């Protein structure tokens, strides 16, 4: 079914099939993708959330190897992504003023000794929300995402750009591959960032062509995701293609 896919693009039915296949694999790999249906319609999107601790300095924000076992993610962080304008600081002052006025009625003098000391700095944690939607006009999948602090404050475009790894940033700005822009989420109506699909077809065509030539099944959404995902910190485990593909013909195995 997948390999019969028309070369030119992805229609709704194929998109849905690709998503279902990806979901099955994600379920096996516990990769966290889920299908979010839009109420009262057949439309929907793939969703995944991820939490990462980031190192923030004035010039860049990028992933600290969050999974590496003995990392101390909080040491080199500044308090906030670069945005404390005056108003914000005032507001923060108001909030801390409130703190003083509110805590009166809570007994924190007899401190809860059942709590362990946690050097948690919530502002260094970023939550990422990734959505994969179908763009009908481009007939390609589109990656929507937003990043926000644990307080739920979305990052600005500038902050998001700075959270793109420097290596990628340079490449992105020069390469026609894709570009991050702010758009209203077509199904949720909330502001999201998206990787613009205008060149997706261009870089997917060789992938599809190669697959077709080798009579190899290819999941359009998965292949596409493995290209665009890493740009915005979304990992696509190799196991999707190594473990789970229905045994590929031995000749087509290409070591990369």
């Amino acid at each position, binding site marked *: 079914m997948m390999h019969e896919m028309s070369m030119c693009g992805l229609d709704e039915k194929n998109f849905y099939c690709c998503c279902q296949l990806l979901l099955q694999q994600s379920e096996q*790999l*516990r*990769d*966290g993708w*889920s299908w979010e249906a839009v109420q009262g319609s057949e439309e929907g999107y793939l969703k995944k*959330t991820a*939490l990462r*601790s980031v190192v923030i300095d004035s010039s860049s924000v990028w992933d600290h190897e*969050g*999974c590496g*076992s*003995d990392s*101390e993610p909080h040491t080199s962080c500044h308090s906030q992504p670069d945005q404390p304008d005056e*108003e914000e600081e005032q*507001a923060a002052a*108001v*909030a*801390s003023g*409130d*703190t003083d006025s*509110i*805590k009166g*009625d*809570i*007994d*924190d003098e007899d401190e*809860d*000794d*059942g*709590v*362990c*000391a*946690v050097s948690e700095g*919530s*502002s260094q*944690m970023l*939550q990422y*929300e990734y959505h994969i939607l179908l763009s009908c006009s481009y007939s390609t999948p589109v990656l929507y995402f937003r990043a*926000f*602090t*644990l*307080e*739920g*404050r*979305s990052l*600005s*475009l500038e902050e998001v750009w700075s959270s793109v790894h420097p290596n990628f940033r340079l490449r992105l700005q020069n390469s026609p591959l894709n*570009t991050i*822009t*702010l758009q209203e989420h077509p199904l*949720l109506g*909330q*502001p999201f960032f998206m990787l*613009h699909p*205008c060149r997706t077809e261009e870089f997917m065509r060789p992938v599809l062509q190669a697959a077709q030539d080798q009579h190899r099944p290819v999941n359009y959404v998965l292949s596409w995701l493995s290209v665009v995902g890493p740009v915005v910190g979304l*990992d696509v*485990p*190799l*196991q*999707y293609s190594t473990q789970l593909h229905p045994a590929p013909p031995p000749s087509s195995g290409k070591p990369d």
Partner: protein
Amino acid sequence: MASETSEAVSSTPDLKLQFAPFSSALEAGFWHQLTQKKLNDYRLDESPKCIKGYYYNGDPLGLPTRLTLEFSAFEVDGPTPARCCPATGTLYNTNTLDAFKTTDKKALLEKEAKEIWDAIHSEAALKDPSILCKFILLTFADLKKYHFYYWFCFPALCFPEGIKLVQQPSALEQVFSAKQIAALQEAYDGMCIKRETTAVPYFLMKYTDDTVQMVPLEDWDMFFTDTKKVTVGVYDPCTLSQHPGWPLRNLLVLLAYRWGSKLDTVEVLCFRDRTLQGSRSIQHSVIFQIKLPALPLNSACPKSVGWEKNPKGAMGPRMVNLSECMDPKRLAESSVDLNLKLMRWRLVPSLDLDKVVSTKCLLLGAGTLGCNVARTLMGWGVRRITFVDNAKISFSNPVRQPLYEFEDCLGGGKSKALAAVERLTKIFPGVNAEGYNMSIPMPGHPVNFSEATLSQAQRDIEQLEKLISEHDVVFLLMDTRESRWLPTVIAASKRKLVVNAALGFDTFVVMRHGLKTPAVSPSVPAGADSSTSCSSASSSSSTPAGSVPAVQGSSLFSNIPGHKLGCYFCNDVVAPGDSTRDRTLDQQCTVSRPGLAMIAGALAVEMMVSILQHSEGGYAVASSSDDRMNEPPTSLGLVPHQIRGFLSRFDNVLPASLAFDKCTACSPIVLDHYEREGFNFLSNVFNSSHSFLEDLTGLTLLHQETQAAEIWDMSDDESI
């Protein structure tokens, strides 16, 4: 924070169990949804609402133990994300900041703690142990500023003396064999499948060397016939190796209450289940040996704790400012800018948007042309737009003038300049628009009827001079020829870029006026320092305008530098090579084909943008129709002097022509008189018959263009 490997294995007798508290984690969608709820459902209703969060036990090491609320938090019966445990909560959304501050937090906590305690008493908590993991969320949503104040509480009942550990906690892999671990994982998965869920918050467990059995909490009495050794499992969101997460805390109270008398110690498995790069592991789960403290039967509800500390580590609420991502005005602004940036990223990488966006535009005339120019400027993200017009909106206007509506015509009609500002602000609140309801004095329209009219004219001129000084580009968009004279003179004197658009019935001209080289004499009036870039004007002046190479084509003039280009009054009727057909423009006819104003208005703005993109700005050499095949001088293409359009043929030509040294508006003698004599000179122009200017410049005709055309054609030839 505890380190991973525990070196001190010696079991100190006073080892106390401490729990990692929940950190609240809110997704951006939560605040959007709360806003919707507040606006549409709750309104002023402050009563507690049921909401839902969830927690996860598969985080990589180092992440805080979170209770997450997303946009679906308000659908209590909705699905929980796979492999997450739900937690139900109570939302108290206050109407005022004051109510938020004065809410009795202690009472809220005690109320919730009492409910947990009651559920422990009755068997409710056994049947539905998720009751043990509840939370409170106190909020105040300031929807004017998009500031959200909030405070979470994760109620936990306390043992007065704390909880003692029998020995240091150990990782599952230190206690269990690989076989046992595999059996444990299988038993957990089996239990999940049996209960048609993907996560079980609490369970009971028995194991041998190669088997593991698991059942839900409520099966205690059947499962544990022998209470010598009891193992309880808890789905544990914590990643610390020495501490359990919060969900265990109330479970221990439940155990102590129900079975404390029979149990001395209890073994707790903090079940952690993570998958990295497709490979799953549970061996990092932690096992605690706990000595259960005694809870006296029928005792009152124990002391409770649970309000979350703020980021500073103090007891207090948090505040998040979401105006950036929720205030519609801010969103509109960033969307407008981003839309333009998209153009730069993808199509015209070298486009200098800041130059365009920051350009201050003065629109003289707020009629059909003014409305269309304003809308196109808005499309380009221009923020500063000022209108000058003295007319009121009449019933014929709205269909052609897209900033006005029928309502604006009623009661005599609103002032166009002011109504245009109002509408612009409605279309895009980020615009910085101003309107001036004033007249522009005109040659041949005397102002000397009385002292009053004279001083009014003087004030109008001063105001106009001030406005032209304060702006970067002046658009001439009036419907009479004469009214363009004064701003042409002032702008030429102040070296401001002028873009002029005029309509015939089915023809139009859009042109930039020649931008005079900066005056060298120190006696020039202030304002000569034009803010448009006048970088290398002199360098281009060395190219003689008349050195026409063997360029064939209709244009007599090529490569005219910007400072030698004519103004509207120089060459209104001079259209090289096409002069006979280009003459309908000047007939003072306000009837035109309806599409014309939109076309001309749009072209006027696009011409301005192209000029701004040129490194020499208004001094750029004029492109002509012959340049259409050549390498364009800017990233956006040509920078013509004029665009003349013929709707009957759906055709545009790009003529260029030289400034005329006897021009009634921009010739040196006129500018010199204006700069030296100011109002005296101008009032002479207004009050005299047109022979005054004609005498001054050596022309004899101002309005009769047929004859003038011939004279100008000759003069142009001479000037080469």
